[in-house]
Structure formats: C-alpha cells, structure tokens
C-alpha cells in the first residue's frame, strides 16, 4: 500500500504541469490555438492507457488532474477512453456524447475536429459516427462547443471497466478544476489589499480558502484510491470511482463559487478567469455523474 506518487508519476506530473503552463494556460481556455490537438497527441495524453503505451490508471489520473487544472479540452476525456477500448476503430479526436434516450437527439461535447463521438452510460461505452454537416454551438463553458445529432450506427463495449475508466478521467478533470479555483483564490488573497493588508489576512476570507483546500484534498485522495482500485480490478472499483466523481464534482463546484466570492467584483467579470472554473464545474456535473444509489450499496 502506497498512495504517494512514485518518482515516475511525479516526473510526469511536473512535466505535464510545465507544458500546460507554457502551451495551454487556463487563461486561454476559451480560445485554444488551432494546432493544439496535434500537440496533445504528441504528448501522448490521447491514449495513455491504450495498447502500446499501457500506462496504469493511477498515472493517467495524476496527469489528467493536471490537464483538468488548466481546463484542457473536454474531448481529451472521451478520446483517451476511446483509445483504450476501441483502439482498432478510431483514429484521431473523439468527441463526448452525453447519455440520451433513443430516439432523442444526442448532445455531443467538443465536436470540433472529431468524426466519432463516445457516449458514456453506467452500463458501457458506445461509439457513434458523427454527421459531416453539423453546426457547432457554444455551451455554458466557454472552452467547450457542442453539436446535436441523431442516433447513428454504433459499436459498443460492455466491459464493466470501460465506463468506470471514463468516469475516472472526468473525476480527475473535476479535481484539477477544484485545485485551479483554490490556487486562484489563494493567490488573489495574497495579492489584493484592502484596509492596508492582503485580504487573505482576514479570517473570513482565509477560512473560505482553507475550506477550498480541504475539499480539493479530500477529492484528490479519493481519486488516487479510485484509480488504484481500477488498476487492481477491485470489486469495489465502481463504488470508489463513483465516490471520487461525486467528491470531485462537488469540490469543483463549491470551489468555483467560493473563488468568485474571494475575488469580489472582478470575480464576476467576463474578462477574469474565475467564471471559467465555475462553468467548467457545471459542465462536468453532466459527464458520467456518480450514481447516489451505488454509493449506498452494501459492498465497499
């Protein structure tokens, strides 16, 4: 038993964070450069657990929480999962379809540059062709577009680990998002002065930040445990990943809100970054959400 990062994981984490800082900063989330996707493929993040690379989920979760921290494209989640489970049938970017009941239109997130979309349901993953003549519309999250489409031919996997994998990656994004809001708030609380001192001196603000740190640390611990349980193919893996998703989502949302309060007026502007975290958090709630009933089940 060891829940600390090993040297390789720590090195990958740092390398990811460094690259993101230089090439994919959070502040640029709403207008990523055109060639970005190619870079993400080169970095290997589109298929870390795919045949060939075969890294473990623990390492992948560590890297994905760094990517989530800069609000990296949502399509990375679906693409990484698709490369693990449908390696033979895909090439390039895979968009993320939200669960829908046939024949209701499905909503596809981050469709730009993708030919197929991956739909998550608790029971499995399915891959759908995407029409060429489609329009892209914005979502609440300024970093993410969407399209609508009818049901098309699909291939699927019923491997129980497949939906867990995607849920784990979404949880990692949420944990990263919670981290980002915490750090943004703490940085601002040190920088901004009122009453002749940094606002972080005031306990009313300091304690808001401390609670953000607690939520992020709690969610992060569960994320790492959950990733290990998937690697071990534990019978409890579904429970632990659901717990990680629930805590991650909540931390992202609560921290997103708190971050705006810490920033005061500027936190409400379109120009400043806090709303990007909040809106990403709202979007993540709909991606592979945790099943409350599962959390109450007996095992685990």
């Amino acid at each position, binding site marked *: *038993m*060891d*829940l*600390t*990062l*090993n040297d390789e*994981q720590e090195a990958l984490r740092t390398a990811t964070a460094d690259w993101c800082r230089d090439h994919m900063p959070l502040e640029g989330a709403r207008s990523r450069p055109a060639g970005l996707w190619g870079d993400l493929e080169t970095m290997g993040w589109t298929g870390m657990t795919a045949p060939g690379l075969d890294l473990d989920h*623990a390492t992948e979760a560590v890297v994905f929480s760094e990517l989530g921290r800069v609000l990296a494209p949502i399509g990375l989640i679906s693409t990484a999962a698709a490369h693990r489970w449908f390696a033979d049938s895909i090439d390039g970017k895979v968009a993320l379809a939200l669960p829908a009941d046939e024949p209701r239109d499905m909503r596809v997130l981050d469709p730009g540059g993708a030919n197929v979309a991956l739909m998550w349901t608790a029971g499995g993953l399915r891959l759908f062709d995407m029409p060429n003549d489609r329009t892209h519309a914005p979502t609440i999250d300024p970093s993410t577009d969407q399209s609508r489409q009818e049901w098309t031919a699909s291939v699927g996997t019923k491997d129980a680990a497949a939906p867990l994998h995607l849920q784990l990656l979404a949880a990692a994004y949420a944990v990263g998002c919670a981290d980002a809001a*915490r750090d943004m708030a*703490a940085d601002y*609380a*040190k920088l901004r002065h009122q009453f002749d*001192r*940094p606002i*972080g*001196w*005031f*306990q009313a603000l*300091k*304690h808001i*930040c*401390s*609670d953000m*740190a*607690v939520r992020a*640390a*709690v*969610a992060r*611990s*569960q994320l*790492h*445990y959950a*990733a*290990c*349980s998937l*690697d*071990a193919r*534990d019978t409890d893996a579904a*429970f*632990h990943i*659901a*717990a*990680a998703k*629930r*805590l991650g989502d909540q931390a992202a949302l609560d921290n997103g809100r708190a971050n705006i309060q810490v920033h005061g007026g500027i936190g409400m502007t379109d120009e400043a970054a806090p709303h990007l975290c909040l809106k990403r958090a709202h979007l993540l709630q709909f991606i592979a959400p*945790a099943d*409350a*009933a599962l*959390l*109450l089940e007996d095992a*685990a």
Partner: protein
Amino acid sequence: MDIGFSVEETRFREECRDWLHANVPAEKRPLDAADAIGFDKAWQRRLFDAGWAGINWPADYGGRGLSIVQQVIWLEEYAKAHAPWIGANFVGINHGGPTLILNASEEQKAYHLPRILKGEAIWCQGFSEPGAGSDLAGIKTRGRIEGDELVVNGSKIWTSFAHVADWQELVLRTEEGSQRHAGLSWAICDMHAPGITVRPIRKMSGQTEFAEVFYDDVRIPLSNVVGGLGNGWKVAMSTLSFERGTGFIAEQVKAGQEIAELVTTARANGMIKDDRIADQLSQMRAEVAALRAMTYRNISEVVRTGQPGPEASVIRLFTAELGQRLERMAVLLIGEDLIDFAYGDDNAVQDYLRGFASTIAGGTAQIQRDIIGERLLGLPKSR
C-alpha cells in the same frame, strides 16, 4: 501508487482479526472515567501481554517495532471488531509516548514507555489554562528553579483524565518574565505529588472526564524536563502534531464502521426513503471512503519521509467535522427517542453530545482553518 497489502501484512491482519474475535470484552466500557479506569488498565494490559500494544513503537521500550502500516491494519480490525475505546490510555498511547520517543532522554524513555504500554501509568495533558486556550502561548503556570527542582504554581483546565492520571505532560513557564513561545518547558509531572489538587468537571453528556488542576508549590525534579529547559514550545508542537496527526487514525478508521451502521439503520427504519437522508448518507459514504484514502496517503507519506505530510491539518479538520456529521445523522435516525436521553445512557445521543469536543479539543476548527490557510496555502498570518 497501489492499494494492495503484502502477504505479510495480510497475514498480520488475519492474526489481528483472530485475536480480537476471541478477546474483545463482552461487557461495555463504563462511561465515567472513575469507573472506567480499572477496565481501561486491564484491557491495555491484555493488549500488551498479547503483543498488540505499541505495534510501531521501538522494541527496546516494550513495543513491537513493526511498521505504521501494520499499526493501521490493527486499528482497522480493532474498529471492525467493536473493541472498546482505549479511554484513559488515550494520552499516553496517542501523544505522550510518541512525544517521549522523539524528544526524551534514554532514562525517561526506559522508565515511562513500558509503563504506558502496559497500562500501568495513566497520562494526562496539561496544556490548556483558563487564560490560554486557543492562544496556547499565553501559558502562565510557572516553575521556579530551586536547586535541581522546579517549584510549580498555577492551574490548568480541561485536563482529560486528570483525576485518574499518574503522570502529566505539563507545559509551563520556567523563565521568569519570558513572553509567549519563549521560556516554556515541557515537563513530566507526577500527578500524585504533594501540592496538586484536582477538581473534576462534568460534561454536558453526563460523565466526569476532564478536570481543573491546581499546583501549589509542586516540586518536579529538573530531570523530568523533556527536550531541555526553555524548549517547551518545540516539544509541545511535536505533541500536538501527534495528537492532530497519527493520533486520529483510530477515529478515521472508526468512521467507516459508523457509516455502514447508519445506512443499515436507515434501511431498517425506512428513513432511507427520504431523499434528503439518502442523499446525505451517500455523500457521507463517499466522504468516509475519501477519509480512508487520505489516511492511507498520509501513512504512505510517513513511511516515505518519516513524517506526516502538510495535509495532516486537513485530515484533522475533515475527520472532526465528518465525525460530527455522522453523529448528527445518527441522532436524526433515532427520531423521538432522543427525548428519553438521560445521563449514563450510552447511545447515539451520548456520542453526539460528546462529539462536540472534536472541533474544540486539540485545537478548534477555527484554529485548524488558520493553520491550513497559513501553512498549506501560504496566506498571511492573522495573529
């Protein structure tokens, strides 16, 4: 990262389970400290004789010299087996002993550690004073140096188990005119020494478990000072790091047991059909899982670096507040039976009332939030 246990650890877990299964006392631990002291001592002695005391303490002083992971395994099985709270042995086992292991002289360790492990010596913690609670550096109890002795005058308050204790972790001012963190010392005080008066205090939950302690020219040999005269603040901080760090593992582990029981109760009485209750329970189920993950992470950190990570303060606060949420839920689930609560009842209401301590004792939730903000996030110090 991995969450598997080694073959040796798994075998160790089985040994723990088997022994506990055969040996956990059928009778409940009495609630009041004065009634429980015999029980606590006897149980600790049994643990010691069977090799379960001081699992990760050095073998030279009566411990087993095993790993902290094995200590955690023991505590997990301990909670599952519904073994009794270690009660009056809490201070000695959880932070007194560990403080001595880290800071004390060979003689001090050789004398005290085996006695703590055998349940022969009960310890209490004399930190808080009427004027020094959250602001611990405001300590006024003073020790005048006379020859090779300290002559102590002053008072302490909220000292758990003082009325049944043999020894005390006493933090006092040994340098006249010193201020705040300077001039303090951490001394081993004999609770049976002349000049000590203990006035027990009753809690709102009914039992008499802590006390006020008065010192009137109490003589303590200078050889009882731990970590050197004037270094009391540093030693006290190591005590608190154990109290707030590894000292809480037992509670963290117990939470897993408690949430499982709450879900069972809510199913049995049908209250789980209330969506709000179901939602809170599922939330706490996730939180309890995360608490275990955090505990494991912190333990891994100890194994790797020799000390708990900076997140220990986060775990401490989260454990305390989650514990209280669990206790509140338990009280909600018993419904109207709450009205019948009487002093002496050992039930969910008792636990709920006692549980208010977890965000007060050992540093309040507010102080913990200051620590997290300042040490983990680097925000400016408020005080």
